[in-house]
């Protein structure tokens, strides 16, 4: 009973503090607990926030890639029928249609983990285990020469990987 009163007191204090907007809103949102949020909070920040436990190596990743990714992205990430994943800066040389790959364009390695886990393979997204995602990320980074063949990728190492095009972006400003 006393806990409940304390909570009610805290709530009315908040409403006063945050003014009319809060007090007048319908307030029909239900409080979301950390346990509820965890299964949906799949985004990974560029500093690695949100990376789960687990790990993978390029060798392990090759097996996952051959089974799950090769049909769309080609042998060793060479592309076709869908996006090419492997290739260096020569593919972005002036005077030709640019071919953007993970290796020559993506500025953050964390994005690969985030995207593969949420969206790939296209016909079976969210089916890979975290270890498998780490392994595929390691394989793609290794094919692009960003990490060594025997490096391990996990929540600690992935955010420290420096992508070749990390400084290749300028924030847009109108009129510049």
């Amino acid at each position, binding site marked *: 009973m006393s806990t409940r009163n304390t909570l009610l007191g805290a709530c009315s204090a*908040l409403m006063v503090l*945050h003014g009319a*907007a*809060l007090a007048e*809103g*319908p*307030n*029909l*949102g*239900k*409080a*979301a*607990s950390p346990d*509820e*949020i965890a299964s*949906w*909070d*799949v*985004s*990974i*920040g*560029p500093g690695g926030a949100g990376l789960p436990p687990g790990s993978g190596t390029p060798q392990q990743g090759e097996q996952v890639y051959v089974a799950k990714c090769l049909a*769309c992205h080609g042998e060793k990430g060479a592309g076709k*029928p*869908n996006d090419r994943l492997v290739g260096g800066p020569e593919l*972005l040389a*002036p005077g030709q*249609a*640019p071919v*953007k790959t*993970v290796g020559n*364009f*993506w*500025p*953050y390695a*964390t*994005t690969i983990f*985030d*995207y593969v886990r*949420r*969206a790939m393979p*296209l016909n079976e*997204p*969210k089916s890979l285990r975290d270890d498998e995602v780490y392994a595929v990320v390691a394989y793609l980074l290794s094919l692009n020469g960003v990490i060594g063949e025997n490096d391990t990728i996990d929540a600690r190492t992935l955010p420290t990987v420096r992508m070749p095009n990390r400084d*290749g*972006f*300028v*924030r*847009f400003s*109108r009129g510049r």
Partner: protein
Amino acid sequence: MRKNKRPSEPEQAAGNGLLDRRLFLTAGVAAIGSAALSDSTAAAEALPVEPWMKTPGAPFTPYGQPSKYAGKVVRAVASVPGTTGTGTSRTPHHLLDGTITPNGLHFERHHAGVPDINPEAHRLLIHGLVKRPLVFTLDALMRYPMESRVAFIECAGNSGLLYQKEPAQVGVQPIHGLLSCAEWSGVRLATLLEEAGVDPSAQWLLAEGADASGMSRSVPLAKAMDDALIAIYQNGEPVRPSNGYPMRLLLPGYEGNMNVKWLRRIKLTEGPTMTKDETSKYTILLNDGKSLQFCFAQEAKSMITRPSPGLTMGSPGLYEITGLAWSGYGRITKVEVSADGGASWAQAALQGPVLPMSVTRFRLPWRWEGGPAVLQSRATDDSGYVQPSRAKLIADRGSRGAYHFNGITSWGIAEGGEVKHVYA
């Protein structure tokens, strides 16, 4: 300034037959039309009494469909190889008029098909740097005060074909069809964020869809607080599945990709999450190898929808040139039209209401004498920005950017009336 003119001499507003935009509002049009009517007085047959005038028509239908004779007024679909629901479909603006895109013709860009979402199971989660993480049902949101915004949504890749070296031999739909405009109604995102209590350290939010691709984009918090809407209705009816049912994010004026469909989650963060779509896609590769990132608002742009490729001109005479202009930075203040490839310009009439972050229809009368012409339109918005020529845009940014092409489009009209996409 207006001179006294005989009705047979309509006021020329610019070269190659462009007439004053007020012409259709004056007596002049009757005089011009009379020449074309003169040979139509030959012996007349009685107008036929058609079968549909003599028997009751079809019964009611619960949800109306277009006429079967309007069967060509459809989206053009292009799927990514090996997929059926991933890719784009484009609005047939050359076959439409007005400013509102019918819901069945609104363009689509899907990254993993259209999800079949049970609205009772759908949830919108707001969390991250907030004092009280909250989860909303659709029923809950339906009880909130709502607002409507007439807003265009334009894919950042719209008109990207104009980056090509040679003019693509296609028309309005393949070139400019990734733009549509609707009246969106829903709940202000600011209302929900205020209820959740924004932590002062939050500067961005991540918006994420419930589709299989979990499409996600980072949005500056300032935009979310300014005019963002959780849209639940599209042109008065529930948002179509292909446009985000049961709810989508609407960020008026911002590139289409950020208007996340099937919205399931908003996470407040200090910085951008650097998702796949805001790094490897939707950035503009410049000639020096750098890429412009976070190009949010769509710059001022316009297109002539009629005449346009595929719509061959009829007999010489009076035509209306019409099209759409829009800007993600505000209202359209002026649209100029040229019939001589930009050598001279006439101001088109803007059809009201002229709304910010919406499309504005423009119209201009044109006396086509049957000879060659190059039609162009050029929009200006209320920030003073003028739509650039294709050459200027490419001189400034190169031709490898893929996204945010807003240069001027040219339709070449040949002797005889064929209309083709040209560079001028």
